[in-house]
């Protein structure tokens, strides 16, 4: 995948490297064309993937050192602009998500008000020290005045207590959010003060490590690669919900939210969907769809048979499932009850019906989502099967290794298409009714059909004509692109 590396390192100038799969023959031709045409640069039209590919995204991997340098440059720029200390500038940037223009504007409008809102100073300067040997209100020991320290709010405590405070906070992983020790004082403690007070060098290292993490997390254009033990930081031009693939650990994820890439579904929607699938919110819906509370003791009862004469297992109360009235009054008038139910209980009933409907809808989408997830796992075995089969063929002198590479490409493309297809279901679930949903579901169905066709052909690759398979690949990818182009927020 050398094309990918090129795309990241030199995204602007070399249009040819913008292709994500730069190894098909057509691309090669273009590469050659491009090579000779490059002298006539600045022709935007020669970068088709940039404008046409809805998933195109510019980013570059940074090492920790590079990221540190980048952050320090921004911090220094703000220092000189506002004439504040580096620790203060760091806190301001962190608390306002590195929106430098906004910070400068607000600070210049009302410096003290802005610092108060940012929890970096207090409205009035406190003075809690009395006499020449004041008592520290945390440890209750009297010390000479020079043993006392504090931040901008003026609350003073002895050196040992601050040290202890920082130790416990840092051990809990809190660094940039450490507050003054005084009760109900929200003023934050800045880095310079922490480092001045901390006695253990080990904790100082921990502090700088954790606070660096906080800085990166607050920066909209930087993101830690979520891969296991991967120290790479991805830098992008904009904070967008686009796919990033870490070259170091091969993890792929959404740049904006850091979880698995989820186009065409948006970040907040996929989060809602995943929590919905994880937690038992549907259990709650099930309960309201299939159960009612006993009208006497309020225990929850599930109706497990057809009979409407219910007896509460707890309090043995006999009642009617329809109207929740006493069963004794039923008997001969039972049929009246079943006719009656439309009137007094309709509000209640409709809630149950609604819940049942909601459950049905969720299960519909969830089933398909799950099904594609499972199929995706199965495609893994297809890939390994193809690899072994290719090896066998090459051993038997049936073509060379290169001749069979298109099969692996087909399997990879199938996975990519199925992946997108899987993530169309949460999108559809949360979509409002209307013509846009009709269009979406139409395109989804088209993609679904082509993906299944492709899957069928890949599994039977040996009896399928290569041209046919390549054609099918092209069709499926076109469908995927069309859907994303129309529905992926750019």
């Amino acid at each position, binding site marked *: 995948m050398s094309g990918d590396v090129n795309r990241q390192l030199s995204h602007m100038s070399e249009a040819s490297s913008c292709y994500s799969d730069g190894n098909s023959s057509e691309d090669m031709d273009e590469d050659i064309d491009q090579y000779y045409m490059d002298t006539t640069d600045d022709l935007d039209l020669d970068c088709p993937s940039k404008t046409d590919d809805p998933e195109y995204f510019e980013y570059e991997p940074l090492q920790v050192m590079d990221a540190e340098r980048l952050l320090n440059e921004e911090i220094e720029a703000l220092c000189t602009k506002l004439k504040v200390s580096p620790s203060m500038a760091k806190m301001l940037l962190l608390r306002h998500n590195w929106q430098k223009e906004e910070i400068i504007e607000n600070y210049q409008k009302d410096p003290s008000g802005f610092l108060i809102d940012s929890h970096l100073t207090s409205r009035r300067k406190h003075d809690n020290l009395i006499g020449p040997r004041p008592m520290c209100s*945390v440890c209750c020991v009297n010390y000479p005045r020079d043993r006392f320290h504090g931040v901008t709010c003026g609350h003073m405590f002895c050196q040992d207590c601050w040290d202890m*405070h920082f130790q*416990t906070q840092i051990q809990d992983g809190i660094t940039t959010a450490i507050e003054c020790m005084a*009760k109900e004082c929200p003023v934050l403690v800045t880095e310079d003060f922490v480092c001045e007070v901390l006695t253990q060098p080990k904790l100082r290292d921990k502090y700088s490590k954790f606070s660096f993490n906080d800085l990166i997390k607050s920066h909209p254009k930087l993101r830690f690669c979520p891969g296991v033990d991967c120290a790479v930081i991805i830098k992008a031009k904009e904070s967008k919900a686009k796919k990033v693939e870490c070259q170091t650990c091969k993890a792929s994820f959404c740049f904006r939210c850091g979880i698995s890439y989820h186009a065409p579904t948006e970040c907040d929607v996929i989060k809602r969907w995943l929590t919905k699938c994880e937690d038992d919110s549907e259990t709650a819906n099930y309960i309201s769809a299939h159960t009612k509370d006993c009208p006497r003791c309020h225990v929850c009862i599930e109706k497990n048979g057809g009979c409407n004469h219910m007896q509460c297992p707890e309090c043995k109360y006999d009642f009617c499932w329809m109207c929740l009235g006493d069963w004794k009054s039923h008997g001969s008038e039972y049929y009246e009850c079943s006719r009656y139910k439309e009137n007094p209980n309709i509000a209640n009933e409709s809630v149950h019906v609604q819940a049942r409907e909601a459950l049905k809808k969720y299960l519909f989408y969830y089933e398909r989502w799950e099904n594609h997830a499972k199929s995706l796992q199965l495609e893994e075995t297809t890939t390994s099967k193809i690899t072994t089969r290719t090896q066998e063929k090459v051993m038997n002198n049936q073509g060379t290794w290169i001749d069979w590479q298109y099969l692996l490409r087909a399997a990879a493309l199938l996975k990519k298409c199925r992946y997108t297809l899987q993530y169309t279901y949460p999108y559809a679930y949360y979509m409002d009714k209307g013509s846009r949903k009709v269009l979406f579901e139409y395109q989804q169905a088209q993609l679904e059909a082509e993906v299944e066709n492709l899957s069928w052909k890949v599994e039977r690759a040996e009896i399928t004509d290569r041209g046919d398979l390549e054609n099918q690949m092209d069709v499926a990818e076109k469908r995927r692109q069309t859907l994303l182009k129309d529905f992926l927020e750019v």
Partner: protein
Amino acid sequence: MTTPARRRLMRDFKRLQEDPPSGVSGAPSDNNIMLWNAVIFGPHDTPFEDGTFKLTIEFTEEYPNKPPTVRFISKMFHPNVYADGSICLDILQNRWSPTYDVSAILTSIQSLLHDPNPNSPANNEAAQLYRENRREYEKKVAAIVQESWNDDDDEGEEDEEEEESKAGS
């Protein structure tokens, strides 16, 4: 051995004796300064009036940088008290400040009895009744107020209860 936490707890105890807040009392247990027993009297003009509610306060060596664990030993019916007696109170969790002492903790819990917060319920039934059926809430509270006196009458039973709660914690 004396540590910062133990020294501070001695100060807390001294302060509690010299300047006792009304309606609460507390003292370290006989052989362990890190474990305190306390009593909160139900505040006037609340359904808890006349109740004598026992609590335990458990400190760690990180006190006062970390809050202690406070738990009702007497049976409690309150929107912000869990079934095991532990208390949902901001100053005992995220709003803790090292400047709080035992006296401040006990008076805060006392005012929590006065002023429950039904929006962060630890006891759903109590929170719901507090919001929707105040009369029934007061009836349930009255029952645990009576139970709190029974604890006093029967010292042996109370000790047993304390033992149980320690084993459970």
